[in-house]
């Protein structure tokens, strides 16, 4: 185990800004694509029926 506490985990050895900035934006980019896909799927279903 690398981390003694949650605070240590979030601090990432002083690199928290970079690590969480990278992971956060990646998660947001994937979430945005999933959201856009779901919207497109719903609209094309409505248009097809």
């Amino acid at each position, binding site marked *: *185990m*690398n*981390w003694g506490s949650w605070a240590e*985990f979030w601090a*990432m*050895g*002083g*690199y928290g800004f*970079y*690590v969480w*900035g*990278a*992971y956060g*934006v*990646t998660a947001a*980019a*994937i979430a*945005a*694509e*999933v959201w*856009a*896909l779901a919207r*497109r*799927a719903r609209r*094309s*279903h409505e*248009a*097809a029926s």
Partner: protein
Amino acid sequence: MSTAIKWYWFASPQTFYPLARWIALACAVGAALLAAAGLYVGFFVAPTDAQQGDAYRIIFIHVAAAWMSMFLYVVMAFWASIGLAFNTRLSAMMASAIAPTGAMFTFVALWTGALWGRPTWGAYWVWDARLTSELILLFLYLGFMALQAAIDDRRRADRAGALLAIVGVVNVPIIYYSVQWWNTLHQGASVSLTRAPSMAAAMLAGMILMALAFWLYSIAAVLVRVRCIIRERE
């Protein structure tokens, strides 16, 4: 002979459509499980790096996203060229369905690279061969999407997009070999087929798990999008 018939069978959008749904569903579930395992290994099993501290943990998404950005472009150019050569509808649809996911992973590779570059190199961005060619890849994806969106006639849009995709594929080996061909700040490959990986086993495992997760995610996203395109066009 029977396999040849099956290929034509699945090349028809009508037969591919229901099949794609189940493949997409299975891949989405697999991607979520692999990502959970990859994040667990990446944050809790892999040790802190002796030189880079915990900043190196960006590697798990950075390398996986960069691999996907190049791989998806090659697959997109492959389908585009098949569509151009044989005039098969589904091939052109596949190329169009891949572009947004490829662009997303290219953006992620550039973004995570910038946030990794700042603590390790001292700069978010440098005009280095690897970074510049990856940025060109993003413009190729965006150019492909913009070109297809700008042409109203579907067949002409498919052809124009295919030409751009095929010409742009020369950029992929440039990205891959840029670290060897030019004197660059970006490090060389840590993983290759010809020699043992130059990294700890747990780090490598986390990277492979995230790469597989992104791979399955890409299949799921592309198949869902190709189903939308089939509904919109057919």
